[in-house]
């Protein structure tokens, strides 16, 4: 598969938007992989956390926003604590999620949560889950 890279994407609105929403300098990431090495949610991810930033650096909007990875992130901040370049990957993941959610594409339907568990779940699970997966 050949990916064509040009100014349109690389210096386009997508990386700029991600930088704006996350407040992070995506170009500070030098792809060392330490974030991926420590991520607890990595088992089902299709794209590594560090790869997500790479895709943003290359201006690949569709692939990053379509990944399962951004929805598997648990916002545990382990990546943020350990990044040697001080890049807050958790914020970048949030920016990508938010870019999908703001198009009114929710990732969870509250009506589909089985009634049986609703009574057992602590409210914080529902509140935080809806916060992350819905707009």
């Amino acid at each position, binding site marked *: 598969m050949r990916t064509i890279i040009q100014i349109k994407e690389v210096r386009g609105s997508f990386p700029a938007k991600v930088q704006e929403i*996350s407040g992070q300098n995506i170009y500070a990431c030098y792809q060392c992989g330490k974030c991926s090495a420590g991520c607890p949610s990595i088992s*089902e991810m299709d794209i590594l956390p560090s790869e997500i930033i790479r895709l943003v650096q290359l201006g690949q909007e569709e692939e990053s926003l379509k990944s399962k990875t951004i929805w598997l992130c*648990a*916002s545990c901040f*382990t990546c943020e*604590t350990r990044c040697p370049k001080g890049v807050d990957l958790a914020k970048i993941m*949030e920016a990508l999620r938010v870019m999908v959610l703001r198009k009114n594409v929710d990732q969870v339907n509250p009506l589909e*949560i089985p009634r049986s568990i609703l009574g057992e779940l602590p409210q914080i699970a529902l509140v935080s889950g809806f916060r992350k997966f819905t707009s």
Partner: protein
Amino acid sequence: MKISYFPGCTLKTTAKNFEDSTLASLKVLGVDLVELPRWNCCGTVYSLATDDLMHHLAPVRDLIRVKEEGAKRVVTLCSMCYNTLKQANDLVKADPEKLEKINQFMYREEVKYDGSVQVSHLLEVLRDEVGWEALKKKVTRPLKGLRIAPYYGCLLLRPTGVALDDPEEPTLLEKVLEALGVEVVDYPYKTECCGSYHTITNVGLVIERTYTILTSASQHGAEAIAVSCPLCDFNLDSRQKEVEDKFSGFEKIPVFYFSQLLSLALGLDVETCRFDLSFVDPYALLQAKSVISEGRS
């Protein structure tokens, strides 16, 4: 001493055991937590998008409530509330423009927020206001022989700036447990994420995390886990049902809030612990170690 207290929604329902045991224990230790009137849900988790102010209204409004009581400090028990309130507070302290916008939006509030409230967690109160020596002195029922693994979860220790303790080698929970006479078990997963909110949509992930964390603790000799967060408690305790279904040979292990252990060690009635809200039965272990004598009522 009196400190303003923000409970958060879960502490009144599924985590009532956390609240009851904490309030009762702190009374014995000379700390009176005064619940904030008209508090609202903090809207956990803290929104990480820089262009989003709506999601910060809820926590800032709670901080306004603190100011309305004339208090300078608020204590939380729930890790998620702590993290959300603290990050929101730090944000508005550092960015007066955002604070101004938030205040203007909530123009109906009588008090404007000015970034002056200090957000603390229960563990800080135990460390700073009570002190480990004073705590030890008040222990009447030392929990000898209990081997317990502390579990911190994420939000007390991360991100940098919010951390209550060293995120790689924290010691706060260990100090509490040691003061209670517990034999603390160290294991490598005490700061590794439990899966958090994925429990509503991706139970498989949580099951895997719970299994890994609990088996590591057991392998290192733990008989029980001590947690500090209601969501971690749910994932590590209630989800043991699903873990048992998926992994044959998995042995269930009781999960306590550290405040329940605090309650027991301070000689309080077992009722304050509200063990009826636990999933995995803790009585068997407690009886075996002669911490309590009566059976489940």
